[in-house]
């Protein structure tokens, strides 16, 4: 029975760091340039060239480590991982083997369960093979782009947890500014290690599925592989330790190479780069520059700003939205700002890409100015919404759209007078309301709103009317 098998998952997540220059030279890391234009003798591994470690890369890795509760190593060095592949111009990847920069952290899931992190190490990305017209071309632009690999312990026990862990890493890495974590562009990808075993028995033999570049593929691959391993065991056979790949077309995993064919990477210390001593001052300075982590931020939104949990989570999920919101909130009225951002702006964005990019024509200050008018009662929610739509379309200040009349406001005595008028001139609605037809009050509210050309606060008017009628 499949349901008898427990699932065990460990993830190795590669995250491309968004430093301006590459890990071992000063070439730019920007994505999407003409092939082989962001290259130098170091990127192409020309004989005699030497790598110079970009300290910024270590700083980014340390940020990632601090954000995932890791210890930062005082001494760290780089190692050579030797293997032959055309996209790897030196025939070795400079990586870290036995003294990685960060060790022993964890990521906490919503349930409170902690997924332990074994270590985080830095390494260089390889180039890219492009297959076209029966030829294979090599683009070394990506060669030397800095990566961190975040290696979890096998603490994940179901597929939903795997997704949550990945999303949590993604959000965290974006918030601390080390990566945009775009799986579709390859700036975040993962290898999954998966095994199954029966309750009370030791872990089963694991297989590794390489290079998952979307969360839904990862989920499908895990589901397929879980079921495949269960079937293998149920039929009395053994799971073979091997590396597999996910086939998007057939939605299955297939064998790439077995353990016997596994590469011997012949790791040894990289002689061209000196061992790095990481000073406390260096780490302290990074710690001091860390922004609030997503969990802390979300909690503060709820406790300090009075946002609902769902609203808070939604804002935190998208780094750029959170940045925009934070900037608005600093200028006052966070609750109203959140309503407009989520209700008006966010709702108009269809794709995840749009939400992640969150590109607006207006600045947080422009929105804050609008929110301030609403907060001070100069305009009501409806006008605020209408004005925001115009601002989003044209990028102008709220003042460009609000007329003197919009801004005139309505004083309380005028509202009181209009409410009295409404009750006096709509006897039928008043009666209906008194007889239990609560909806009838809307007609009275409508009267006042119409008279104030929508400037009155409808909720406040309704309360007043109810008080007048004495319901």
């Amino acid at each position, binding site marked *: 029975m499949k349901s008898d098998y427990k699932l065990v998952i460990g993830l190795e997540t590669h995250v491309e760091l968004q430093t301006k220059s590459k890990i071992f030279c000063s070439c730019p890391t920007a994505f999407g340039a003409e092939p082989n234009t962001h290259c130098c003798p170091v990127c192409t591994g*020309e*004989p*005699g060239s030497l790598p110079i470690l970009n300290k910024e890369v270590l700083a980014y890795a340390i940020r990632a480590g601090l954000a995932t509760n890791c210890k930062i190593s005082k001494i760290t060095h780089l190692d050579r991982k*030797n293997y032959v592949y055309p996209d790897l111009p030196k*025939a070795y990847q400079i990586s870290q083997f036995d003294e990685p920069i960060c060790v022993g952290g964890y990521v906490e899931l919503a349930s409170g369960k902690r997924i332990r992190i074994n270590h985080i190490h830095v390494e260089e990305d390889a180039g890219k093979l492009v297959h076209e017209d029966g030829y294979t071309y090599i683009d070394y632009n990506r060669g030397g782009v800095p990566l961190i690999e975040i290696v979890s312990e096998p603490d994940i026990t179901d597929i939903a947890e795997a997704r949550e862990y990945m999303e949590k890493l993604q959000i965290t890495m974006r918030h601390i500014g080390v990566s945009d974590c775009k799986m579709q562009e390859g700036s975040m990808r993962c290898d999954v290690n998966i095994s199954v075993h029966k309750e009370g028995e030791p872990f089963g033999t694991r297989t590794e599925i390489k290079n998952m570049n979307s969360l839904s593929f990862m989920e499908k691959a895990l589901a397929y592989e879980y079921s495949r391993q269960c079937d293998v065991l149920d039929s009395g056979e053994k799971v073979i330790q091997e590396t597999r790949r996910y086939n998007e077309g057939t939605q299955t995993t297939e064998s790439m190479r077995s353990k016997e064919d596994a590469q011997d990477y*012949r790791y*040894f210390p990289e*002689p061209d780069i*000196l061992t790095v001593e990481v000073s406390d001052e260096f780490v302290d300075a990074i710690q001091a520059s860390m922004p609030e982590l997503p969990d802390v931020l979300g909690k503060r939104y709820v406790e300090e700003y009075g946002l609902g949990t769902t609203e808070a989570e939604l804002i935190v999920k998208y780094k750029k939205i959170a940045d925009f919101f934070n900037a608005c909130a600093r200028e006052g009225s966070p609750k109203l700002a959140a309503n407009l951002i989520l209700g008006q702006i966010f709702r108009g964005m269809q794709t995840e890409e749009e939400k992640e990019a969150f590109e607006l024509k207006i600045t947080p200050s422009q929105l804050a100015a609008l929110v301030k008018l609403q907060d001070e009662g100069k305009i009501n929610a409806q006008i605020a919404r209408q004005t925001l739509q115009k601002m989003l379309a044209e990028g102008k200040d709220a003042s460009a759209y609000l007329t003197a009349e919009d801004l005139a406001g309505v004083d309380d005595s005028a509202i009181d007078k209009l409410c009295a008028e409404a009750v006096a001139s709509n006897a039928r609605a008043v009666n209906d309301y008194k007889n239990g037809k609560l909806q009838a009050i809307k007609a009275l509210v409508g009267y006042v709103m119409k008279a104030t050309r929508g400037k009155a606060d409808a909720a406040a008017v309704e309360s007043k009317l109810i008080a007048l009628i004495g319901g």
Partner: protein
Amino acid sequence: MGAGKIRKYSELLRSGATTSVKLTEEYLGKIEVLNPEINAYVAVNAEKALRAAKAADERIARGEGDALTGIPFAIKDNIATKGEETTCCSRILKGYKPTYDATVYEKLCAHGAVVLGKNNMDEFAMGSSTETSCYGAAYNPHNRGYVPGGSSGGGAAAVAAGIATYALGSDTGGSIRQPAAFCGVVGLKPTYGAVSRYGLIAYGSSLDQIGPIAASVEDAAIVFDAIKGADKRDQTSSGGTEPTADKLDGNVKGLRIGIAEEYFDGISEDTLKAVRKAIDFYAEAGAEIVKVSLPMLKDALPVYYIIACAEASSNLGRYDGIRYGYRAAHYDDVNDMVMRTRSEGFGREVKRRIMLGTYVLSSGYFDAYYKKALRLRESIVTAFAGIFEKCDVLIAPVAPTTAFPLNYTADNMIETYMSDICTVPVNIAGLPAISLPCGKDGKGLPVGMQIIGKKFDELTVLRTAEAFERAALVDVALDMGVTL
């Protein structure tokens, strides 16, 4: 001023007695006559040399430049020069033209030096005889039946034969010092890191170091002064740029010279005699001779071959025929192409060292070989540090014998490996050492002695060497029958 050439020529250039163009033309002429005899150069770029000479003359005319301006020199074929074939004398790099200049070359060019061409060497600097070159062996100018040593044999032969004023070589386990000794010239292996390795095609990255081969100690010092100093393109480089050449005063009074008997085990009679005589000279000149002990010296050879081969197996992985250099003509697919390219492109000795290196790094053998070698390396470093508390320099032979006969190495592989015993400890410990002539053997072949110093103390090494040279006890000068 003895055998030194740089200052002599520089004065001639400044006085107007000759020009760099004339000097360069004379050198090119001599190369044409002598190179076919000794095969010291694998490439000569006359046009480029004359262009550089002309520019140097203009600088000198303006009263600019220094001792190196306008002086012709040669460079080992494993040092990158932009747009010019740089092959490490390996078939696998045939046709490879670097897209950049090595730091040392850039520095010498900035001094207005004139490069004549590229020197022959053992393939990828793996060897002690310059017989594994894909361009054929180089010959010892003192006797063409003998090798010039290696791997910088081409440079040493060129300087000895007077077809380069000086040459840049590289020394991973003795590749500057041993050929200098075999050819009767001076070779300086600087402290690891004193000279930038940027542009030196790697053999054993933690051991490789570029240095000068020259006609005199002062010449070596002048060139060293010009090429040394930390380089932002080589993270392992460090150290200052204070000149040494103007501090060679011939004074060794009170200098503590260490003698470790372990260096003198298994050394041939002629070599022993010449080195001992040199030590006597220092004692008479007022130096204090201190007996020291280096029992771990016997570990140096295996440590060297394990580390150098391990690093080489990784460094040479990139030669796959994809981006540059040689590519097999026929193949089935990418893997087949890489395999055939490497099988056809590398020579026997290089393949042997790649295999050795791959083996010692393999899982299951790593701890027993590579890791153990690293531990022993540490103990060798510590032992040298201890010794240099008792003395300022060490004097030792450079090699157990003088130059080997041609074709001797191929049949005596182990013995040839063993002959590196006197030179490899310095590379393992990252120390500076110089090789200079101290006599001749019964066959008239030069004998070299080695002076080893503390890290970054090239000055004391050079001063000690120059004092001996100044006393002019040795004449290994060579007349190849072509005069300028």
